């Protein structure tokens, strides 16, 4: 709850060379976060992320990085986990409010725009800091499969394939070579996991990555570890 004070100034102010340093710093926080990437195929979208936990003592079942906003939209992030949780809560509420108002499931580009709006608010409001996450929003609606990125600044745009977080520039170079516009979803899943493997520190298995897929059934699904294991073993062959 914001305080009703006359002296609630924004902490994000312009520097002399026209930059908003707080946003730049937030982007740095994103860059040092775990790698996430997404690929839009002709008949679906896949998003994957690295789930590297600091110690083996953590129960990996309690950590779920890929989240659903509603039946047809899934999200992944790079950056600060707690900031992500707050955004997911707000985004879910926005999508229900949209449904209440229009009796229509919120389209992917509109929820991306709304989340971007929330993130922008926090770069201009008093007493708050920008969110330290970039999101990849994957969905399938009447406009087909779509993949959006939303940044701490509040800018958002659609991708065919992209990577965020650690090693994102190398991963993007890798994707540039392998991306084909008529790619099918199964091919895209394999490419995504392969790209993740390229920059992976150590051994990649079904417990330290998460994969989320949406096909033309318009139902976003997070794959079970057994299914992920199948894809990984296919790549190792």
């Amino acid at each position, binding site marked *: 709850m914001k305080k009703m004070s006359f002296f609630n100034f924004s902490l994000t102010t312009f520097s002399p060379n026209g930059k908003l340093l707080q946003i730049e710093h937030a982007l740095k926080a994103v860059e040092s976060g775990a790698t996430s990437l997404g690929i839009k195929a002709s008949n679906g979208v896949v998003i994957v992320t690295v789930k590297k936990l600091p110690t083996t003592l953590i129960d990996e079942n309690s950590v779920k990085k890929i989240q659903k906003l509603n039946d047809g939209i899934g999200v992944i992030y790079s950056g600060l986990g707690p900031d992500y949780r707050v955004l997911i809560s707000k985004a879910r509420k926005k999508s229900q409010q949209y*449904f209440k108002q229009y009796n229509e499931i919120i389209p992917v580009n509109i929820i991306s725009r709304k989340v971007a709006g929330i993130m922008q608010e926090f770069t201009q409001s008093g007493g708050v800091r920008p969110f330290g996450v970039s999101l990849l929003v994957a969905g399938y609606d009447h406009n087909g499969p779509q993949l959006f990125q939303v940044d701490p600044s509040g800018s958002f745009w659609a991708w065919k394939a992209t990577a965020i977080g650690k090693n994102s520039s190398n991963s993007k170079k890798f994707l540039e070579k392998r991306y084909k516009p008529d790619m099918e979803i199964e091919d895209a899943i394999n490419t995504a996991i392969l790209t993740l493997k390229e920059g992976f520190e150590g051994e990649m298995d079904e417990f330290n990555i998460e994969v989320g897929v949406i096909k033309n059934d318009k139902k976003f699904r997070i794959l079970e570890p057994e299914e992920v294991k199948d894809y990984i073993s296919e790549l190792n062959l």
Partner: protein
Amino acid sequence: MQKGGFNFDLYQRNVELIEKNNYKVPKTTKTGTTIVGVVFSDGVVLGADTRATSGPIVADPNCEKIHKISDYIWCAGAGTAADTENTTGMISLQLELLSLSTGRSPRVRTALTLLKNFLFRYHGYISAALVLGGVDFTGPHLHMIHPHGSTSTLPYISMGSGSLAAMAVLETGYNSKMGEEDAKSLVHQAILSGILNDLGSGGNVDLCVIKHKSMEFFRNVDTTNSKRKFRKKLPYMFKSGSTKILEKEIEEKMRKMEIVNEKESQIEELEEL
């Protein structure tokens, strides 16, 4: 600052008007409905008629009274149609938000609690009498919710103006060992009893059978009460030539323009028109 809910500022003045000034209270319009729910061995069956009335007029002869709260939790509503639709709609959204945030499929008792808390806040002014039924991971459940916010959990329930007619059928036919077909038939007969014996209920019979991870909606399973004898098929179409032409007059709308250099002839042409 005005918070949510109804405004009771004029309550005192209304009471005085009625008692001292002999003011005639306007009659509340009963919307009339028969809704029924029955638990059987594998799940629940919900049933409803399809007549929506506005006083003595049938406003909608084939409306849908069974509303979706979640995939396997459905709710039949009696009372004011706007109240039942919007109440169930809102609770359905809240339940989806909750199930996303907890990562669990929703429970019938959660829907029950959300509905009863909501209706209690409005002290009966939201006229929604509901029969809530569903199957969650704890099994099949059936509840009735009154407009004031009280609830009951029973193996068979009927609500609405046709509830007495329907309850008579349920009391006769119910047994705790019923299977799916028996339960469907019982609910069907109960709704039919309401349609035939209550003026406020009518139209067709809608059934909804919910079992574990399965839901079947039988829309208009029985239409014997709504087959009107004379009914023209929409849209109204008349064959070309069926209307007799009495007079014909053709008017030229487009005039051909000729560019004339001489000014005199232009003026002459204009004068002719």
